């Protein structure tokens, strides 16, 4: 993996119809950090993430890597749904990127990654045979197989039950360390456990505000007093 770049947003804006969704966003997403983006539904979080991933163009401003190299080809994407192809086995899903680029899939590495996410025995099965948590772990293995320095995650654990979600947070926090990660979530506990930097997107047009991050290294324990206290104050802030 190449060194993770920081990502700079310069005057980024997007209109929805004739109304501005957000305007003039300036921000540096620190290299090798996990930035967690919170905010109400419809405020523009996913649109912003898609722009960072090169899946949509901003109406104003630009998004660049701070090492002056293009971001294209250095981003891995993990969505709200696992996006596993139902006709392909788990290992074929993990190596999908290689096949889409016309490369020979590295099956040994894919098996190793499946082992890392606890799916070593499920490599040959279809996604339909997996539980929701297992499917998201397979999706995480697919992200890790891509071995990109930038990872964009749009509410990846929102459909999971609380216990599975907590386990996935631990796994993702460990496996994605030292990459530049942007994670959208509605879950204050998830934000407090995983964030190196926490941003709240709010208002109309929306702006970004930095929030306090609890001490300690991510992924922070689910029962750490600092995490629980930060979760409570974050929830209060989001309810305002």
């Amino acid at each position: 993996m190449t060194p993770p770049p920081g990502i700079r947003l310069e005057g980024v804006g997007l209109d929805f119809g004739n109304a501005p969704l957000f305007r003039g966003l300036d921000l540096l997403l620190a290299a090798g950090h996990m930035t967690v983006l919170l905010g109400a539904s419809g405020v523009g979080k996913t649109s912003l993430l898609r722009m960072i991933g090169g899946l949509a163009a901003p109406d104003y401003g630009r998004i660049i890597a701070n090492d002056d190299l293009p971001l294209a080809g250095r981003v891995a994407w993990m969505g709200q749904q696992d996006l596993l192809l139902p006709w392909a086995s788990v290992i074929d899903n993990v190596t999908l990127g290689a096949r889409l680029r016309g490369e020979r899939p590295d099956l040994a590495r894919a098996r190793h990654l499946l082992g890392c996410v606890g799916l070593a025995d499920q490599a040959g099965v279809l996604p339909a045979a997996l539980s929701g948590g297992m499917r998201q772990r397979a999706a995480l293995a697919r992200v890790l197989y891509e071995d990109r320095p930038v990872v964009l995650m749009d509410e990846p654990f929102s459909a999971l039950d609380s216990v599975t979600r907590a386990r996935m947070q631990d796994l993702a926090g460990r496996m994605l360390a030292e990459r530049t990660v942007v994670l959208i979530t509605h879950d204050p506990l998830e934000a407090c456990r995983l964030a190196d930097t926490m941003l709240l997107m709010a208002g109309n047009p929306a702006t970004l505000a930095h929030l306090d991050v609890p001490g300690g290294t991510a992924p922070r324990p689910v029962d750490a007093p600092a995490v629980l206290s930060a979760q409570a104050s974050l929830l209060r802030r989001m309810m305002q």
Partner: protein
Amino acid sequence: MIRPASHRVMTVLRPVLTCAGLVALWGALARWGHVPPYMLPAPDAVARALWSGRAQLEPAAVTTLEETLLGLGIGIGAGSMLAIGMALWAPLRRWVMPMVLLSQAVPVFALAPLLVLWFGFGMASKVVMAVLVIFFPVTSALGDGLRQTEAGWMDLARTMGATRWRVLVHIRLPAAMPAFATGVRMATAIAPIGAVVGEWVGASSGLGFLMQTANTRFQTDLMFAALAVLAAMTVLLWWGVDRLLARALYWRPAHADID
């Protein structure tokens, strides 16, 4: 999913009972409905015609089956290629789709004499007829399937640096297979109609030709026998294609519910 034995028995019994009921109704109408046999022969008369006319029915059925299978193969192949072409290249869709629609607006009976004129009395005109009949459902179904690829998969493929062709091969085509299967099932059911219509208009063999000949000679029992063979052939063909498609779509849980 393993189903209980009673469920499997019912799966077979249901169509048998339905057919038996319809034949009983037909028999009752023929026997007590005061309908002359040249208009509605009784089921036992049709059964006798099936046996006595087997020397005519068998080669006729083989001819119609050959035309149908060739029409299906060419129609599915050409329809698929056009659907893929239109999915990859939008101008092709804008230019060609109106013509495909137009081909469906013209009744096949109106086209049949022209096709016989152009392609002769042999097999070619019937195959072209079958192709014309099935081309639209296949193109339309696969085209719809290709256009409705899950947006999330397309986003994922873009971040992975995929080419359009590889996205088509690895994502869009497999994702469109359930829609394509619907089109192929529909095509299988209607392809024999195309072949038989062609035979009615001008042929020297085939079930349509046999039906027309029997009709002009008031051999209604033989005509019904030919119809029964055509129906049985279509049902068996559909069943075989349906089983093949269900196997090809092994990953769809829904296919287990289709009996």
